[in-house]
């Protein structure tokens, strides 16, 4: 059983959601997004990000605008659309459910079962 595989699956599951939450907070350009994620200790390759953003954009969840820059070529700044907001809401609900479930399952039980069956003195 390859643990890295499982770990990567876990990551992949939440990537989209994390990206969308960052963009929801305000318009952002891709490399900045990478930095923000890095600071939250969730590393992502730019090569992964660009296609993802493009797909989200093509799905109508994001939109962008060009911003001229002095230090180089113009940059794309992404913002969330209404549709994206809706989509995000769904994801947030799902995430919450998931988080609660996992939290519940990974907690040790407060008492052992044998105690339960013994009659109280």
């Amino acid at each position: 059983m390859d643990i890295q595989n499982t770990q990567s699956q876990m990551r992949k599951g939440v990537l989209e959601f994390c990206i969308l939450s960052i963009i929801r907070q305000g318009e952002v350009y891709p490399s900045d997004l990478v930095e923000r994620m890095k600071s939250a200790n969730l590393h992502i390759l730019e090569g992964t990000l660009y296609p993802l953003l493009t797909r989200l954009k093509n799905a109508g969840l994001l939109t962008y605008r060009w911003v001229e820059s002095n230090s180089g070529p113009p940059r794309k700044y992404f913002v969330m659309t209404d549709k994206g907001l809706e989509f995000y809401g769904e994801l947030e609900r799902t995430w919450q459910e998931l988080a609660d479930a996992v939290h519940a399952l990974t907690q040790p039980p407060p008492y052992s079962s044998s105690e339960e069956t013994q009659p109280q003195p």
Partner: protein
Amino acid sequence: MIPIEESAYDMLKQYVESLRKFFANEEGRDEIINDIEGRIAELFGESLKKGSTCITEDDVNKIIESMGRPEDFEGEEGKVHSQLGGEGTSDKGTSYDYANTAAPRGRLYRDSTDKILGGVCGGLANYLRVDPTIVRLVFALISFGAGTGILLYILLWVILPSKSLEHTSSAKRLYRNPEERVVAGVASGIASYFDIAIWIPRLIFALPLVLGIIGNIFRHAFWYDGDPFPGIVFGSFGGTLFVVYAVLWAVIPEAKSASEKLEMRGEKVDLNTIKNTIQEDLEGFKTRAEKWGGEFKDRAQEFGQDFGKTMGQKGQQFGSEAGSAVRRGGSRFLRAIGIMFKAFFLFIAGIMAFALLVTLLAFMVAGVGVFPLKNFFLEGFWQNFLAWTTLLLFLGIPVIAFITWLIRRIMGVKSGNRYLGFTFGGLWFIGLVCAGILAASIAQNFDARARDKQDYTIAQPKTGKLIVKVPDSKVKVYGRWFQMDGILSMTDDSLVMNNVRLHVVKSADSIYHITAYKYSNGADESSAVRNVNEIHYGIDQQDSLIYLDRGFSLQRGTKFRNQAVTVTIQVPVGKKIVITSSVNRQLTYSFHFGGRNNDWDFDEDWNNRYESWSSDVEYVMTPGGLERTNKIKNEDGNDDGDNSEKSAIEKYKKSKEDLQKEYDKKQKEAEDLKKELDKPVDSTKYHYKKAVSYNPSQDTKGKSTNKAGAEEESNISSEASRMLFMQMVL
């Protein structure tokens, strides 16, 4: 304009190409590429701003590292699936063909994506428009054959630039088929590639092997020196095929993805066919995807490690590339080696199982061959019946079962019938029981053993010596016969057994006696006695020649019950006996000399006391047993039988002669030395010394002139005196 090193530029171009290829079917491909290029340009700008004059390879590498290589992109595995299931990107029914890139096809590159070691074969294949697996195979063959292939490979590895090349996926590629496999799916993949039935390549691989093994086993079982099949050819050919199979296993990639599977079959790789293929094996889907994810992770790690090193020149690049490839190839090689080991063990297990069953087959054949003897061995209806059932069930069933299994495997038929196995097992078990009963029944026939004694009257030989011979078979065998060397032979109406042994003992009186003891087993006393009386053994005498029959004959109705005959020749003391070589040749076992007159259980005797003896050698009976007449002669004993007394005298004479010679020699020596001593003495030559150890006997006997006491002189004189002494004695 961004100033950039040429090598760095190459690298960049290459990277972008790989991205292009990767996103070939992505709807927003151009956009993505542009975004990424833009980002790269931005990073270049920053680097230049920091103070570097131009972009180096180092910079490019760092950028590529941070951007990531296509295979590392998450969420990108199986571009096929995302294509089909992409949200919002409704399939426009575009045909799934790899887009043309700007890569010129005329040049020979190393393929950076399709590579096992360095991508040499992949690039070569692309250039030649051939399936890379074929190229790899050719390379492997050359390497195995001459070794120069490896050098050539390394040469190409260094020289050729690496580049990600695209494939024309409509070409049919040779893969291994992981679904339909006996060992590794090699045969199955080959069958798909060539569009032939599956069992054909399987048979090609299996047949020489199987034939070779059968040939070898038959050869050993039946003592042929010539092979029923040209075993040498098949033996080595089969072995070669095995090696070929293993190489193919390692080299030919497994058709894992749907597109690969379609490529394997040579079908057009477009959306619809892919859909069908995926629907065909939906189960393996998930596992395959997970495997990919794992693989990408592995490669990402390796990749990261690679780029941790410093790179500069092309040589350095090659070095690191080689390192990563070796690691990658290393794990692949290890896997391949592991697979080869697995194949080897499977092979050995298969061989063992097969050999076991062929042995059973040989037994069965032998059983059939022994058939004519059946009537001599088995008694009564039940034994016969049991024998037949044993033969068929105990021996025959495993053979049939194995053949059935083999045919099924070769044909690729899955055996769904459970009951077949049970049926076979049940029948075999019955056969086993029958064999047991048969053995018990037969053993019961041997319960009792009887012995009879038969005296032969012989005339005492005038020469005082008996010569024992066995003539060639008196019983002429015509017609159908069966012979087991040295044990028994059979004609239509009688059986001749050679179970005769010769025993030579000391006679109680002063004349020769010959007796024969006949033994036989039987179910009980009376039948044993009856069997004994059936034995007929004859002895002929011609003056001093005794002819022993080679064997005794049994009437046809008599059963084999371990009949045996011991011929005992009693030799009186002082008389002689010669056992000719014909005895050794014709009678089954050798015999021994001993003092015992009768042995009831002669079987154990042979094991206890065994003396070596020689044919055609004269022996004389002494009170202590038989002894050779002439003891001094060599082992091959081609002597005419000297008298032992004579030889003793001769020996005595000889020793006396030797002593005489020695004495003469020493005498001469003494004289010589004496002469020397008489010469005028050079004082520097001899050192006169008082003799310390002095033999007093010398004084009284010899004419020793040892006043001066030179050592030599005293030695000489003592010798001389000894000689004189001896002379006196003699």
